């Protein structure tokens, strides 16, 4: 119907006289709709964030909050602590291993999948199936597989006449072991890449076929470049989360032998809930926050550049 040009005079009068009322009449339900979400965000996002920043400036006393004000002392403690440095390196290494071993896998898997005629949908379904299984089930199976005494991994080592390894109990191996399962791939990424592959324009492909390009050449020179943008986006996305590894590592090793698989977020947890140092833990959290923000802003900036 479009914007009515013939506004009933009543409405015009109403809008002139009681313009606030009408706006209010439209806005009030809007505010009512908006309010619960806003309140929830304030209580559970903004308030804790600010409180966390606040807490990091104190030697927080849980018995008599807030305790003594120490300014940036917690931060200098954090940055000068070699535990922090080691844990930071751990987190980066875990991320690096995860990327090296697992980032390219779904790409390859979807490219392979693309060539299948029969079984395409079946295979794609099977690749995505792990998404629907509770993550903890996987973690547990892997913990079982990596068990030094009766796990499948060492059984395989024995068959290959290689020495048994301690896997998750070995400080030198634990980070690698944690990320080895990434080689299996699958999951959401496969879905996204296959969708991206399907988006590649048909004409270009048919033209290539006309020109006599083989399937391999088509894949390498047409499809792959076309999906690289999406690959790039997913890469950048994973980068912003690179410092946040926690759940799966914690369930598998709880921090590993010594500090060898402790991650940054685990450090926060340990400081707060084990050592009861809420202030220091909050400082760690703020440091992580700042680093993550830098990465996020970098992502937004590069995406803006792309758009331009």
């Amino acid at each position, binding site marked *: *119907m479009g914007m*009515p040009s013939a506004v009933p005079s009543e409405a015009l009068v109403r809008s002139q006289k009681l313009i606030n009322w009408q706006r209010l009449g*439209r*806005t009030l*339900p*809007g505010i009512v*709709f*908006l309010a*619960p*979400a806003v309140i*929830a*965000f304030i*209580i*559970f*996002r*903004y308030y804790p*964030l600010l*409180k*966390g920043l606040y807490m990091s400036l104190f030697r927080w006393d849980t018995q008599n909050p807030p305790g003594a004000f120490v300014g940036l002392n917690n931060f200098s403690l954090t940055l000068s602590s070699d535990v922090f440095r080691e844990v930071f390196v751990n987190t980066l290494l875990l991320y690096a291993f995860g990327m090296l071993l697992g980032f390219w896998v779904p790409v390859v*898997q979807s490219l*392979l999948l693309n*060539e*299948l005629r029969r079984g*395409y949908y079946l*295979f794609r379904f099977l690749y*995505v*199936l792990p*998404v*629907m*299984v*509770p*993550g*903890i*089930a*996987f973690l*547990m*199976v892997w*913990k*079982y597989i990596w068990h030094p005494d*009766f796990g*499948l991994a060492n*059984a395989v080592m024995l068959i290959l006449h290689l020495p048994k390894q301690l896997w998750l109990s070995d400080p030198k191996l634990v980070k690698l072991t944690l990320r080895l*399962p990434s080689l*299996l791939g699958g999951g*959401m990424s496969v879905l996204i890449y296959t*969708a991206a592959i*399907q*988006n590649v324009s048909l004409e270009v*492909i048919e033209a290539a076929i006309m020109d006599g390009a*083989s399937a391999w050449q088509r894949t390498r020179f047409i499809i792959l470049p076309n999906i690289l943008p999406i690959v790039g986006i997913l890469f950048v996305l994973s980068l912003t989360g690179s*410092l*946040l590894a926690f759940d799966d590592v914690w369930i598998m090793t709880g921090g590993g032998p010594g500090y060898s698989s402790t991650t940054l*977020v685990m450090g*926060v947890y340990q400081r707060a809930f084990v050592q009861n140092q809420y202030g220091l*833990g909050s400082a760690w*959290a703020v440091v*992580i*926050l700042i680093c*993550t923000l830098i990465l996020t*802003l970098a992502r937004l900036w590069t995406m803006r550049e792309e758009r331009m």
Partner: protein
Amino acid sequence: MQDSTLLEGRLPEPPQRAPAVTHIRMSWQDKAYRAVCYVLSILWVSFTLFPLVWLLSSTFKDSVDVMKMPPDFLPRVPSAYTIKLDFSDVAASDPGNLEQVIREDLAIAIWRVPDYLAAIHYGSITAEAYVQGKKVAEATLPSSQYSQYRGRIWVTQRLSDNLVRRDLDKALSTARFRLDMSGLGPTPAGLPNEETARIAKLFGTEVKPSSTLISVGERRYFPAIINNFISAWNWPSRLYKGMTFAGYMRNGIIITVADILLQWIISGLAAYALSRILTPRFSRIWTVFFLITMMVPGVATLIPSYELVGKMGLHDKLLGVIIPSIPGAFTIYLFKGFFDALPGEIFDAARIDGASEFSTFFRITVPMSRNVFTVIGLLTFLGSWNNFFWPYLILRSPKVWTFTIAIYMAMGGSGAAGAQYSNAMACAVMAALPTVLVFAIFSRSVQQGLVWSGLKG
């Protein structure tokens, strides 16, 4: 084109696959390439699914096999042991007490022997009473009953004949016991082997019933293969009478359903307001207000949120997990994106007609947005169902555990008792089954929804 599909209430279809190229003969290179792709895909899919397969196979192994090295690939079929006892002497010397002695001896046999069978796989133990060659009574104790009730009846780890006699009623009521002095039908004896010989040696040394041992035999007993599931199912009842694993699932369902409903209502209404009701400037401010929080990782609010929930008195309560997950920035973003793409005329028309915003939302927008609601429901479900850490922090008593916490506790949480892998695995399989089934049935729509949300993000 996108608008029209949205209007029809469908998500944009993923583009169709390139049609099979049949009009050009495939060169041998292409055929080879395709073959390689097939092989690699088959291999890779197998590897991806292998952990699940291993999980499934290991779940059927008993607690001894699960720690065997090298591990078996297929679980063993459990054994059923049959112990035959002869009461002819008792019948002759003390006929008045015969029934009582039979009850005692059978109970002793079925309850004491499993204590020594820890290293042997067994599905059930049966003790049979014979008088003059005629079977007159039998008692059967499946291993799932043993593991569930052994600790409930007796506190000691070293059971003695006297203790069994003392608690005879409980001992027999938890087993399958039949007594008929006129004779029961015969049962297959089973075969003797190493393990039966070990059991036979117990009689007269550790186990001293009044009757004499005739033989011990072993058969395959397939039904016992689900014992791990029975034990895992009944696991919570150790602490709370009558609670089963379903209790953990129930907690998970409550949390997840509440999460989904709250996201639909609160985030949906908010996004609708941002998209369709409020003025653009107002809306932009608030959109930014919501979406900036996506840049803040959970760790930054972990400690204060924990304290806050404590102050609200929600520690150890399901609400303590539900309420903090109400803020959903990504959900609002998805909703808003969808609502923005809806044609504006419909809303203007409704307003002119005098409909209130409320009824507009519920009567017009929602039916049109079935798909985005489904997708949000799916995403919220995935996030909430598998959520581990926050529930672990907040929900301390087993009564309110979700199954993720239960599985974690079963395998890593316990210190002295050690990881009960069998238990944990059975729980994991039981927990994974519903979602896998749902996915199998609704696979098309689920995948579609995931793709759409993924691309949007």
